[in-house]
C-alpha cells in the first residue's frame, strides 16, 4: 500500500495534486486529443485512463482510486445524445448522481470526484475543465482520508 511520506505531500503551494481521469474513448478522449493538437496548455495533474464509454466506469474504480491515494478523480463522457453506444452516458449519469450524493453524505469533500461532459470538438472546454478540477482539488489539499494506519 502506498504510504506517502508526510512532507512530500503537505508543502502546500508547490504541491501538485494527482488526479486520475477516466475518459470515454469516442468523445472526451478525442476532446483531450484536440486540446493537444491545438496546443492548449493545462496543468499536468491528470493521468488519463481510456475506457470505451463513461458507462464502463464502475463505482469500484472511483472509490479504489480515492483509497489508493489519488487526490482527485475525474470522469468524462459524451454529451447526452452524442453517445457512440446510444445510452451509455445516460446510464452513467444516473449512477454518478447517486454515487456523488453518497460520497458527500459520507463526508468526502465536494470536488474530490468530478463528473463532466466533453465532446470531440471541445478541446478548449476540456482544458478549461481540467484546470478547474485541478484548482478545486488543490484547494482541498492532499487526500489523506483513506490513509492506512498500518
Amino acid at each position, binding site marked *: 500500500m502506498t504510504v506517502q511520506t508526510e512532507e512530500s505531500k503537505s508543502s502546500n503551494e508547490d504541491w501538485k495534486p494527482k488526479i486520475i481521469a477516466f475518459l470515454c474513448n469516442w468523445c472526451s478522449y478525442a476532446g483531450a486529443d484536440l486540446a493537444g*493538437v491545438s496546443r492548449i496548455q493545462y496543468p499536468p495533474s491528470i493521468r488519463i485512463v481510456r475506457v470505451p464509454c463513461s458507462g464502463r466506469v464502475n463505482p469500484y474504480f472511483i472509490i479504489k482510486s480515492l483509497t489508493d491515494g*489519488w487526490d482527485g478523480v475525474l470522469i468524462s463522457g459524451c454529451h447526452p445524445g452524442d453517445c457512440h453506444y446510444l445510452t451509455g452516458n445516460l446510464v452513467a449519469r444516473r449512477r454518478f448522481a447517486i454515487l456523488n450524493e453518497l460520497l458527500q453524505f459520507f463526508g468526502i469533500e465536494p470536488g474530490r470526484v468530478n463528473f463532466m461532459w466533453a465532446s*470531440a470538438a471541445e478541446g478548449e472546454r476540456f482544458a478549461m475543465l481540467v484546470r478547474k478540477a485541478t484548482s478545486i482539488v488543490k484547494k482541498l489539499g492532499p487526500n489523506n482520508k483513506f490513509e492506512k494506519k498500518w
Partner: protein
Amino acid sequence: MEKVGAVMVVGAGIGGSQTSLDLADSGYKVYLIESSTSIGGVMAQLDKTFPTNDCAMCIVSPKLVETGRHQNIDLSINCVIEDVSGEAGNFIVKVRKKSLFINPDKCTGCGVCGRECPIEAIDIFNEKLAKYGATSVKYPQAVPLLYAINREVCIGCGICYGVCKAKAVEYDREDEVVDINVGAVVLSPGFDEFIPEEANLYGYGKYKNVVTSIEFERILSASGPYSGRVLRPSDGDIPEKVAFLQCIGSRDYSGVGKPYCSSVCCMYTAKEAVIAHEHMHQIKPTIFSMDVRAYGKDFDKYIIRAQKQYGVQYIRSRVSSIKEVPETKDLRLKYETQDGKIIEEDFHMVVLAVGLNPPDDAKYLAEKFGVELNQYDFAKTDLLNPVQTTKPGIFACGAFSSPKDIPDTVTQASAAAGCVNQLLYEKKGTLITEKSLPPEIFVRGQPPRIGVFICHCGINIGGFLDVPEVTRYAKTLPNVVMSDRNLYTCSADTQTIIKEKVQEYNLNRVIVASCTPRTHEPLFQETIREAGLNRYLFQMANIRDQCSWVHMNDWEAATNKAKDLVRMAVNKARQIEPIERIKLSVTPKALVVGGGISGMVAALNFASQEYETYLVEKEKELGGFAKHIYHTLEGADIQVYVKELIDKIKANKNIHVFTEAQMENIDGYIGNFKSSVIHGEKKERTEFSHGVVVVATGAKEYQPKEFLFGQNENVILQSEFERLLNETDQIKNKKSIVMIQCVGSRNDEHPYCSKMCCAEAIKNALLAKELNPDLEVTILFRDIRTYGFKEQYYRKAREAGVIFIQYDENNPPKINSDLKVEVLTPRNDKIYISTDWLVLSAGIYSDREENEELAKMLKIPLNDDSFFLEAHVKLRPVDFATEGVFIAGIAHCPKTIEDSISQANAAVSRACTILSKDEIEAEGKTARIDITRCIGCGMCIENCAYNAIELVDDRRFGTVASINQVLCKGCGACSGNCRCSAIDILGFTGEQIFEMITGRI
C-alpha cells in the same frame, strides 16, 4: 466487355465515404477520389447537426477514420478527373493525382512545418475567418492526416524542408497520372454554397457583421477560430440580437440567385439559432422567413422546441434593406410585418441563410462522365430512381442531384451502392486481396515479456520531455524485457524494427508510447499481428497529444507524467489476454416485411443479386399506400410503375411472395434469423431462415374527424380527388374548389409534417386547372413545403391562378353545411368562399398496435409518433440498433415515393454488407460473464442498448445472464452497474483498470 469488380467514387464527403464503406464491406475494390486534401466535405465544417444537435465531428470522424484505413478502399486526395472512357461494367478513368509536394508515406502529420511556415494564407476551411500556413492540413482531425503545400501562396523559401525531421517534404514531387479500371462510378462531389458577394446582397462583403450561414457555422464550432464563442467580426463582442435571413439565393426569380428551394436552409438556420442561444444565453435570435420548410422526421418538433425552449422568434417577412450604423457597426433592417406595418429594427449581427448551388466543377464532371445536367445544372436523374444518372453504370448521390440534408444524402449514398450491387454482383470479391498472416503464437500461460517503444515524433515529444529518461525508466519496470526509442515509431521502417524486436526478444506484449490510439492503434495492431502476435496483445500510452503537447513549458512535469503513463500502460499490459473474434455463419437469404413500393423495390434488388427473398404482405395483393396514386408531381406514372413492379415480382423465381400474411415470430440474430409466417385464407404456416430483415410495413392515410368529413359527401380527400380527376370528368362542371392543408398533421396528436401533401395538393390543383381553366381553386395553407425542385410547380400553380391563403394554426378555417368556407387571413379580415368540393390534404399516420407487434419480435424501438426509430438519424438512417435489421419507406417516416425507392435500395445495400460475406466477424472487445458470480438480477439487460443480453437457465447456477457476442458492442454500460462484478469487458477488464489505478512503485 468483361465486367470489373471495382467502383470509383468521386468526392469523399459524407456521401462518398458512406458509399465507399458500403461497397468495400460488400467485397468491391473502391477507388475513392477526393479533390481537396482531406475527406469529410462540408459536414466536417459543421458544428452541430439538426435535428438532434449532435456534434458533427463526434459522429463523422469515426466513419472517416474507418474510410481512411479500410483495406478495400484506395483513397487518393488532391485529384482531378482527366478523361473517362468505356461503358457500364467497364470504365477506364484517367485521374491526375496532383502533387502535395509532401510524400504521403513519410509524412506523420506532426504539424511542425505548418507552425514554422512564414506565409499566412487564408484558411478556406474556416471560411476566411482565420489564417494558416502555406503548408497546412485542412483541419486538425483531417483524414488522412497529411500536410500539403498550397502552391499559389507558397514562396518556396524551403523552411518546411528544413524543419521536417521525417524528410517528407519533396518540392520536386511530380503529379501522378493513373488509369483506373472500374465497373461503375458514383458521383458525390457535394455542393457549393451561394456566395452573395457579387450582388452585394444585403451588404455582404461591405458590412463586417453580415456573414453567411457557413461562416456562422465556423463561428459556432468549438474547434473553429472563435472556439465556439459567438463574436461579432467587427469588434469581437457578443451579439445580443442576431437576425437570420432565409432564402438568400434560393426561391429567387430575379436571376441573381436560383429559382429552386435549397431544402435545408430552414432547418440549419433554426439549428444555428438554437446553438447560438445555447452557447451564449444572452443571444436572442430572430428568423425572417417565408415558409418554414421543416418537412423531415422530428423537424417540426425541433422548430417548436426552438421557439419555446430557446426563445427563437420567427417573423414571416422578407427584409427589404440593410443599412450599417457607422459608429456601432450594428445593422438596421427594414421589413414589413404581415399586418402591413413597416418596421426598422437594429440588430448586432445578420446571418444570411445561403442556398445550395451545384458544385463549381459540375459542368466539368458532367462533360467528362457524359452525364446530363438538369435546368439548374444539377445531375439529371431518373424520376423513379433518384441515384441513376442519364448514363448507365454511373450513379449520383447527395447534393449533386438535388439539394438535400445529411440523412437523405447518406440514404442516397447507400442507395447508389445498392444499384452498383445490382450491376456488378457477379464480380463481388474478385479484386479484393485477403492478407496472408502468419499463425498466431500461443501466449496464454507464458509469463508476460513486454517490449516498450517510446517515440520522439520528431520534436513533438522529444522536444518537450526527456525521452531517453522515460526509455531508461521503462526498462526498469517489472516484466519489461526491452525498451527503446525511435524518431517516428509510426513510420514504415520502424514497423519492421518492431517485428524484428518481437522475434529477437520473443515478446508477448508490445507497448508503444507515442500519440493517440484513436488513429494509430489499428496500424500497430496490424504490425504485431504480422509478427505473429494476437492483435489485442498491444497497449498505447498517449505521451504526445495528452502530455508533451499540453505541457510544453514544464519539462520535468511532462517527463514525470510520461513515466506515469508508460507505467500505467505496462501495468495494464501485464493483464492483457489474446482475444479471438467470434466468426458467424450467414444465411444468404433476405426477409422483406411489407409489399408496398419500398418492399417490392427491395425484394427485386435482392433477387436481382440472386439472393432468395421472402416478401410478406398483410393485404390480399401487393401495392401498399401508393395504389391510389396516379402520378407524382414531377409527372412519373405510378399506376404503370406499380403494375410493372408486381409483374416483375411474380415472374421472379428468387422471390417467395406471401399475401394476407402475418409474421408469427422472428428469432435469432444477424446472419442467423429463423422466422415463421401465417399466410393465405387457410392460415398456412411456413418456416424459413434468413440472414437479414428489411422492414417496409408502410403507414396509413389519416381519416379526418374534422371539417365535416364523412358527414358531407362533397368533403373528400386528395386521394379521392385525384381519382375523380383521372377517371371522371365531373371537374368540368365545378366552379370552385377549396383545399385545406395540414389536416391531421402538425397538431398535438401528430406533431410532424407528412411531407408529401403540399406536393399532392399542387399536383391536383394544376391538373384541375388544366381540365377546367376557369375553375376557381383556393388552397388554405400554413406553410407550403414544396422543397427542392418542387418549388417550380408552386410557382406554376400561382401563375395558373390558384389562390393561396395562409391561415393561422390557432384559428383554422371553418366549414358550414352548405359548403361555405370561412377563413381568417393574416391581415385578420374574414372572407367566405363557397365551394363545390372541399378537398382535405390528409397526412400519413402510423398505427402503434400493428407496429408494436413486429417491433417486439425484432427488438426494435418505435418513436413517440409510432414510426420505427432508426439507429442514428444522421449516419445510419436505414439501419436499426439491432444488427441485421433495416428500414425502408414510410414506416420510417412520411416521405415521397422517390425517397422511399432510394431508401429501399439503400436498405438492400446495407444488408448486402452482411449477405455478401459467408461469415462475419463480431467485435473483439465484447463483454464476458462469469456465471459463477451472476445472480440473474437483470440489471445489465436493462442497461444494454443493443438487447445483447438475456436471462437463461443454467443447470448449475440457476437463472444467469448470457451475452450474445455478436450484438455486444463492448461499451460496458452493463459492467458499470454490476454489483457482483460478474461482467467484464475484454480489453478493459476490472483487473486491467485496477492495475492502472494502483500499480505504483
